[in-house]
């Protein structure tokens, strides 16, 4: 085995086999306010992609007055190149269920729901079995909280929390106007916390080791560690837990093949980092926020094909509701094809760039807003490949 330059963290997947929901039992003995304040102290931010402070979200939901509240675990993991939630649910589901239960305890919800990606249907039996064990335990703790499993229907935009809720209510998976945010008006109009699988698992880790211990990892802005899904031109593909605040260079040195010319951080909706920026690009909330997808490309890869594929993906996965995203994605795709074929002048790229930036400011949800991320970062760093 090669020498590891990167410190590997073992928090999410460690200390599990013996888990009899001891941490949950202990945590439930504390007051909700105490738990939330520890979560806020820990600096934990959402592990999906957006990075909203988790403690704050729970605090907002706790503040809402409502007989019914919900906790939803977003397991619609569909960002290209991410597969960490799948791994968590397969290997350490109890951490996720504990995290959800504590959230329910803190905000006053009696019901949790796991929104599982359609393509993860093979895990259904496994999760249902785990839910059985979980319900037995919470009963013993005299805690009224049940978790259900909801199967998604296979749409990318369902990962957006309001679209996810719409889809659970039986409507088309389309994002809603915000505000109100789900914490105040979510599932069936009730206050709802929607967190990513990894966020719940990490919350459970914090309840186990304490905020202080967690804060020893990462940086001032980006506390703790996080899972990365590493793929592409790598000799070591898979899930790796790393401290936040590391540079792309460190990660490439550790995992990349030779001649890596770029890394796509955050999947299709993320950013392309070219080699010249590896050293200065920090992974974390002060630099690049990411849901954990890291795809390496070596110098044999065509960046045009990559961008084309991403745009094709967006043109298909846009829900079609808002103009900038529905039409913009199609125009970007046709646009780069036309420039490549010489049907449009090279200067047309500037029109497309302007379009992408307008999508960022005017699209209804994160999907449409983020199309500009890969488009502009790939275009600016690999202009020749895109144009000619």
């Amino acid at each position, binding site marked *: 085995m090669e020498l590891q330059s990167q410190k590997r963290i073992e928090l999410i997947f460690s200390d599990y086999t013996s888990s009899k929901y001891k941490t949950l039992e202990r945590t439930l003995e504390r007051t909700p306010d105490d738990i939330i304040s520890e979560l806020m102290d820990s600096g934990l931010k959402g592990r999906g992609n957006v990075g909203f402070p988790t403690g704050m979200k729970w605090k907002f939901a706790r503040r809402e007055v409502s007989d019914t509240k919900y906790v939803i675990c977003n397991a619609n993991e569909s960002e290209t190149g991410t597969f960490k939630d799948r791994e968590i649910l397969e290997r350490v589901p109890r951490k996720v269920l504990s995290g959800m239960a504590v959230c329910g305890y803190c905000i006053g919800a009696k019901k949790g729901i796991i929104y599982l990606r359609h393509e993860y249907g093979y895990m259904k039996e496994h999760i249902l079995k785990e839910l059985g064990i979980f319900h037995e335990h919470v009963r013993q703790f005299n805690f009224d909280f049940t978790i259900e499993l909801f199967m998604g229907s296979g*749409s990318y*935009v369902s990962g957006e929390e309001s679209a996810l809720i719409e889809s659970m209510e039986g409507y*088309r998976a389309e994002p809603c*106007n915000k*505000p109100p945010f789900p914490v105040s008006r979510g599932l069936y109009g009730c206050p709802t916390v929607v967190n990513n699988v990894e966020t719940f698992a990490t919350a459970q880790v914090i309840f186990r080791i304490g905020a202080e211990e967690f804060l020893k990892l990462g940086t001032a802005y980006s506390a703790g560690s996080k899972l990365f899904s590493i793929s592409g031109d790598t000799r070591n593909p898979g899930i790796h837990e790393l401290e936040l605040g590391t540079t792309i260079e460190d990660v490439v040195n550790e995992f990349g093949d030779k001649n890596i010319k770029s890394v796509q951080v955050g999947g299709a909706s993320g950013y392309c980092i070219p080699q010249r920026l590896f050293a200065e690009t920090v992974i974390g909330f002060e630099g690049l926020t990411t849901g954990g997808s890291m795809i390496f490309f070596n110098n044999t890869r065509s960046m045009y094909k990559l961008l084309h594929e991403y745009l094709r993906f*967006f*043109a*298909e*996965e*846009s*829900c*079609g*509701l*808002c*103009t*900038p995203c*529905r*039409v*913009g*994605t*199609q*125009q970007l795709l*046709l*646009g780069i094809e*036309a420039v490549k074929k010489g049907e449009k002048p090279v200067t047309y790229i500037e*029109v497309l760039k*302007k*379009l992408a930036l*307008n999508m*960022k*400011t*005017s*699209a*209804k949800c994160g999907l449409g*807003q983020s199309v500009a991320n890969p488009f502009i970062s790939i275009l600016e760093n690999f202009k020749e490949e895109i144009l000619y």
Partner: protein
Amino acid sequence: MEKSLINLTINNIPVSVEDGSTILDAAHRINMHIPTLCYHPDLRVAGNCRVCVVELSGQKELVTACSTAVTEGMVVSTNSPKVRTARKTIVELLLSEHNADCTKCYRNGNCELQWLASEYRIGDHVYHDLVKEEEKLPDTSSSSIVKDDSKCVRCQRCVRTCTDMQGVGTFSVVSKGKKQKVSTFFGKSLKDVFCIDCGQCTSRCPTAALTEKPLYEEVWDALAEPQKHVVISATPSVRVAIGQELGFEYNKHSDAKIVAALKLLGFDTVVDSGYFNDIYIMELCTEFMLRMKQDNEEKNKKVLPFITSCSQGWVSFVRTLFPENEPLLSTCKSPGLIYGALIKTYYADKKALDSKDIITVSVTPCTAAKNETANGSSQGAAEVDYALTTRELVRMIRQSGIDIERLEPDVYDTLMSMHSGASVLTEVSGGTTEAVIRTLSELVTGNELSPEWLKINSLRGENGIKETTIKFTEVRAGWEFLKDKEIRFAVVNGSGNAAKFFNDLKENEHECHFVEVMVCHGGCIGGGGQPIPVSNELIKARSSVLYALDEVASVKKAHENVALNTVYREFLSKAEHQETQKILHY
């Protein structure tokens, strides 16, 4: 509870609005125009088109003015460089997926996308044209509505209108991304899916993706044939509304000038639809009385509530969604059909015309009326040859170059135009019920109606379900079973309220004797063929004009319309004309 005021600034102008208002509301307050497209005052907010984006100080992403609630201290900019470029880009994108062949378009000149294109000076089409050739073939299968997907901007106003307002749900959004579109059930043609032809979608579509099926060219052709005798009737709702497009305000002289205009267009005879509304009220009232008698005599048979059927589209609504209520529907034909039938029989006799040479044209605010015409659908009857909407009549008047206000007043044909105030009321939601109560109470009691019953406030206004109860303390011989009985009347204002009402009726065995249903909100006055734009505010304003017409009418009750005596005596009750049933009923 009084709502607190929120203070904000829009383009540096301070404004205070009630908590819960949107940025768009606040902008309206200070007459600041923010362009919109998917927004419609009658419909739930969508925030799809993004045309109304505005910039908030301190926020990177723009927000939609239609959907964003104001907050204290908000600093809004509706015309910053960022907003302008985003808005222009959005309009350009919309045009790229739109069949922008404006000169050929039915809505050319009254299209919200065209206005936006003009406002933002969209010259060159920078983007790829995304309209597929196959989309350019509109669905013309329905007799009332044309659906042209190549004109659709995906604002979903039609979906919200059809589902939320009308309770029908003919349209929904299907597929995602570039394939996303507004579709009928499995993309079937309109004639093969459940649609009540109300046309509310056509009056709320910002473009020409949904329009009425025009028949005015055919009417021009009929007018050009010298041997044809072309008769027209335009309902009060039409007359009250056309000024919106033709640029005049309705007043007491308008009707006479409209008659003059219709004659100038080439119509041989102009009749007032009110006359036929009065006959309709008589028939409806009689049928209701007989139904109550039947209910009294055959206790084990369900014959009540008596449900009106004049609102076209309502019969197909009942047949599809509440088939158990179909036997309760009135058999009276709609006033429009009564008009056609009497013109081709009684009128033809009187004027010594061959009915084959008569062409009947009716102008109503209704797109569904096209369904019942000889030239509209295959099941159409021969009574009415062409049903035009208010919008089509406006187009004919425009094409003729007539300036209505400058015309010398003219008069209706005297044979069949006299009408009561009640006849005007049938055009507003609740009005048919008021008209029936006026006649019913005098027929049952033999006494003059007490004046307070000339204006039944509980049956007026915007509510979705309106109710009233009457009780007769004195009755004429034969109607003893109605003495001191509470007769309950209900009005369903808009088909969107019908499901709730009938489900409630079924579950709670709520007693009700008479139900008036108008599929369009507000009644005929809010019909789907009225000038565009439409809004509940406009409907309210027009309704008040109709109520005023009733107030000034010298004859207020259908049964007091003496002209009816003549037609009943001379024609409808004669032995050789035992066709009454056929002429006036289904």
